[in-house]
């Protein structure tokens, strides 16, 4: 018996779709019995961690699978055609592909060709599906760029992708997908590679276009905040199966399946809580568990049932759930299922920080680019300008801002990967304040024992030719002075493995044998090896799935309270920052524009840029955004910064003074802000909006 949300108005209907990958002589099932409908003019979101088959579903619908994947059974009904059964060469299939169904996805830079102008690529899509002349196609491409809000569309038509910003590239992708008037748009993580502010603008655009064209959207994302902003219905997938399907409110507000519950619970919350996590990771396809796919990671699994028998998709209060707790076996479970509450709560009042450990005074980093026939012209790129901040022992200071704001350069300048052009960095080690701005390579090596880095990408930041043991032991072996005797070294490395929650038994393996979260733990262990005081963490959880992200964040929190570490935490994700940081510094175009306690910045921001950044933050319970706070345009080019306030040209509150005078950093009751109008503005934060002022946005 087929179970879906019953309807007659489905534009797209998947039924029992099963897709497998060929791996040598084996076939591993990647999509198993996937069924759901996409109704007319509605948005259906597919969510789940990576490896759950979300993108594969999209590619199956368009029949653009890799050659080692094949549809084994099932139907994909779209406008009366079964796409699953259509022949590879069928003109109907090719007409639907790109014509009736458009596709946009992550990383617009790689999804577009850099060899042809964007106009060429848009026109190609139009001409493939509509019988128009070149001139007409060009007109249409121009209209499309207008429609997707591209600035200067006439010029952009002849631009190449590398001449556009990330947001503009994604607009091109959208224009291209919409060219032939599709009735269904498949958006596969379309905003994951973009900054939050750009994400907000692109999501607005998709909603507008959906309303004006009456399109349906199949929206694939791992971000539950985006789901809550965009979706009418939500399909939760786990290991290639639909585990829950319902309306947005049903799924996000009262989740049924333990997996959905766990996903929602592992989202970072405000304050210093230990977050709930899902143990383990999504298994590989060839290790698909018997019975319920989620059983090995499920807190409610009943042995003898869940690990043996695969649950059916059953209807429970209007929602479809694939879980024994909602089927005939429900009496075995205590309904409603309740996820465990977070274990410990550390009162934010009891926070005690030690002495100042890191002290930056007016640090600037300018890169020089030589141009001209013999490199005689020098162009200055001001990546970081006049940064002053202090980090205390046991404290987490977050650096937030859009990409290109200079966060990473600042972090790398502090640890000496770049040499500061101006300013001082003082670091309290060996009982004294030491100036570490100008050090020799040998002196840096000593400092690096106390100040360590954790990098963003756990895949490329570990040497694939070294075992996990050697990776963690390397900083110990490099330690100046007498080498550690081998038995002590082994003991210390194993201790570090246990500290970060890895089994020392695994230390002889190479990085590829570990999952992303485990690799990031190795990265943390490597940073901790020489007993550092300060860790500079550059987007350490951005590349991880939410459930794994929660595990790593918990680890960082535990290590801070047990070892008294100080973190400089670089992140673009304000939800993560809210959960981990004690103080937040907001960076824009190489400058700090606001610096205060986390709650202050998040709830009572005093800089218009912070407000814009916060307005773009999405969480499942905060999906209604103020669209008047959208940031127009792009950040300024760091090689030609405007005079006055660097944010003025995008600021809704800017006055004449802003474009002439550079605002100084001012202390307003412990809340540092660099804005001429900080006192007068009534800005909106995440929670409290109890501020009053006299200036209103003049946009």
């Amino acid at each position, binding site marked *: 018996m087929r179970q879906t949300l019953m309807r007659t108005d489905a534009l797209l209907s998947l039924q029992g779709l099963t897709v497998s990958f060929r791996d040598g002589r084996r076939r591993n099932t990647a999509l198993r019995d996937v069924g759901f409908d996409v109704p007319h003019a509605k948005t259906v979101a597919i969510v789940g961690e990576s490896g759950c088959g979300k993108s594969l579903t999209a590619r199956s619908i368009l029949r653009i699978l890799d050659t080692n994947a094949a549809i084994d059974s099932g139907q994909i009904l779209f406008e009366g055609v079964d796409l699953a059964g259509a022949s590879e060469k069928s003109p109907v299939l090719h007409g639907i592909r790109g014509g009736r169904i458009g596709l946009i996805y992550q990383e617009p830079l790689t*999804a577009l060709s*850099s060899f042809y102008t964007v106009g060429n690529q848009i026109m190609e899509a139009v001409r493939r599906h509509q019988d128009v002349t070149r001139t007409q196609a060009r007109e249409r491409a121009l209209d499309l760029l207008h429609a997707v809000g591209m600035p200067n569309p006439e010029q952009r038509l002849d631009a190449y992708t*590398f001449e556009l910003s990330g947001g503009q590239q994604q607009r091109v*992708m959208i224009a291209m997908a919409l060219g032939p008037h599709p009735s269904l748009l498949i958006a596969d993580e379309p905003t994951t590679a973009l900054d939050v502010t750009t994400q907000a603008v692109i999501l607005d655009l998709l909603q507008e276009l959906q309303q004006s064209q009456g399109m349906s959207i199949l929206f694939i994302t791992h971000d539950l905040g985006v789901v809550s902003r965009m979706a009418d219905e939500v399909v939760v997938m786990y290991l290639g199966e639909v585990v829950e399907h319902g309306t947005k409110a049903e799924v996000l507000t009262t989740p049924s399946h333990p997996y959905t519950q766990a996903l929602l619970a592992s989202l970072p919350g405000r304050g210093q809580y230990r977050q709930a996590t899902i143990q383990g990771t999504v298994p590989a396809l060839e290790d698909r568990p018997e019975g319920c796919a989620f059983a090995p990671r499920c807190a409610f699994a009943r042995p003898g049932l869940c690990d043996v028998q695969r649950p059916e998709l059953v209807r429970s209060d209007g929602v479809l759930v694939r879980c024994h707790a909602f089927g005939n076996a429900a009496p075995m479970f205590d309904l409603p299922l309740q996820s465990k509450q977070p274990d410990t709560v550390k009162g934010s009042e009891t926070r005690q920080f030690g002495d100042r450990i890191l002290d930056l005074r007016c640090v600037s980093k300018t890169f020089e680019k030589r141009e001209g026939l013999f490199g005689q012209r020098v162009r200055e790129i001001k990546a970081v300008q006049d940064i002053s901040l202090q980090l205390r022992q046991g404290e987490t200071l977050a650096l937030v801002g859009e990409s290109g704001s200079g966060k990473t350069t600042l972090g790398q300048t502090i640890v000496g990967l770049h040499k500061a052009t101006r300013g001082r960095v003082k670091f309290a080690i060996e009982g004294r304040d030491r100036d570490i701005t100008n050090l020799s390579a040998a002196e840096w090596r000593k400092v690096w024992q106390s100040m360590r880095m954790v990098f963003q990408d756990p895949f490329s930041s570990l040497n694939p030719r070294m075992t996990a043991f050697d990776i963690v032991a390397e900083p110990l072996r490099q330690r100046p002075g007498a080498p550690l005797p081998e038995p002590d070294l082994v003991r210390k490395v194993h201790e570090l493995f246990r500290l970060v929650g890895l089994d020392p038994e695994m230390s002889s393996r190479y990085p590829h044998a570990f999952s992303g979260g485990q690799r990031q733990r190795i990265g943390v262990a490597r940073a901790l090896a020489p007993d550092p005081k300060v860790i500079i963490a550059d987007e350490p959880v951005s590349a991880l799935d939410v459930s794994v992200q929660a595990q790593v964040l918990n680890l960082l929190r535990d290590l801070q309270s047990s070892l008294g570490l100080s973190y400089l935490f670089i992140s673009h994700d304000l939800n993560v920052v809210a959960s981990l940081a004690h103080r937040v510094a907001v960076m824009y175009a190489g400058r700090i524009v606001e610096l205060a306690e986390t709650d202050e910045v998040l709830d009572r921001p005093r800089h218009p840029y912070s407000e814009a950044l916060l307005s773009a933050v999405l969480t499942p319970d905060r999906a209604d955004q103020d669209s008047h706070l959208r940031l127009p345009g792009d950040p300024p080019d760091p090689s030609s910064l405007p005079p006055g306030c660097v944010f003025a040209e995008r600021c809704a509150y800017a006055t004449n003074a802003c474009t002439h005078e550079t605002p100084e950093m001012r202390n307003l009751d412990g809340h540092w802000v660099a804005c001429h109008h900080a006192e007068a503005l009534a800005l909106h934060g995440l929670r409290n909006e109890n501020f009053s002022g006299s200036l209103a946005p003049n946009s």
Partner: protein
Amino acid sequence: MARFLARRLVLMLLTVVAISVISFFIIILPPGDFVDRLVQEANQYGENLEPHEIEDLRRNYGLDRSAVEQYFVWIRNILLRGDFGYSFGWDLPVSELIGQRLGLTAFLSVVTLLFVWIVAIPVGIYAAVRKYSLGDYVFTFLGFIGLAIPNFLLALVLLYISFRYFGQSVGGLFSPEYVNAPWTLARFADLLSHLWIPVIVLGTAGTAEIIRKIRANLLDELHRPYVLTARAKGLGETYLLLKYPVRHSLNPFVSELNDLFVKIVSGETIVAVVLGLQTTGPLLLEALKEEDLYLASTLIMFLSFLAVLGTLVSDLLLMLLDPKIRRQAASQEMM
């Protein structure tokens, strides 16, 4: 763009000048000169030259002056009169000697290059798209054979085949009746009928290499997101293959184009000796053995000029192919 070209031409000129200096002095560097060889030869025939006769010879050949002086005289004559000096060994002006041979070398090299492309590009694309198919394996096998067989051996084999089965005259670029004939259509046709052997010999290794390269480059590109985008647009498979991944995969190939060209020009010597071709290779070899100063220097200078020209052509092609490089050149950021 014009400024980019101007800069490249200036740099090219500087490179050629530097090469002329180096080649000239390297040939002069070893002890002994052409006159010493003459004396030696005379001794072998039992003639003894008087010291003043030797001095006279030196003066006649201009070898009594300092090396620096000789170099500047040589360069001055080239610049002012287009006179590349005198070949001691051949007793002829260098320009008369090398004119036709240089032309033949350039022609042979360019034809070989075209042969390599025409064969290697489609085969490379086929081998990538049909990875691990029978065709891929066959081409891979043939390619490795092509890489492994030494050029001179291949030359001998082809000579045998052409003589045994096609009854063609052995060796050379012309049939005997055309060797010293003036250029006519018939002579050109005769050249073409002889050209295939050296072209195949010179091109086989390069073809095999390029097939491997194109195959590897294209395999990298075939699964890139932009290919998926093109497919999702509903484009036909052949069209999108040629428009997107093939075009993207040509970049590393074009940037190595000059290496291939240089390999063909320098690999030509042995083949030309074996096949008896009237190209520059055997001439240069002989000139070096005889310490024929001006002939050797001029040849080296021209051959390096060809190589430098090849680099410029491959850079220009790269610009034509890749808009990113084009824009960089336009904004004067490329050195």
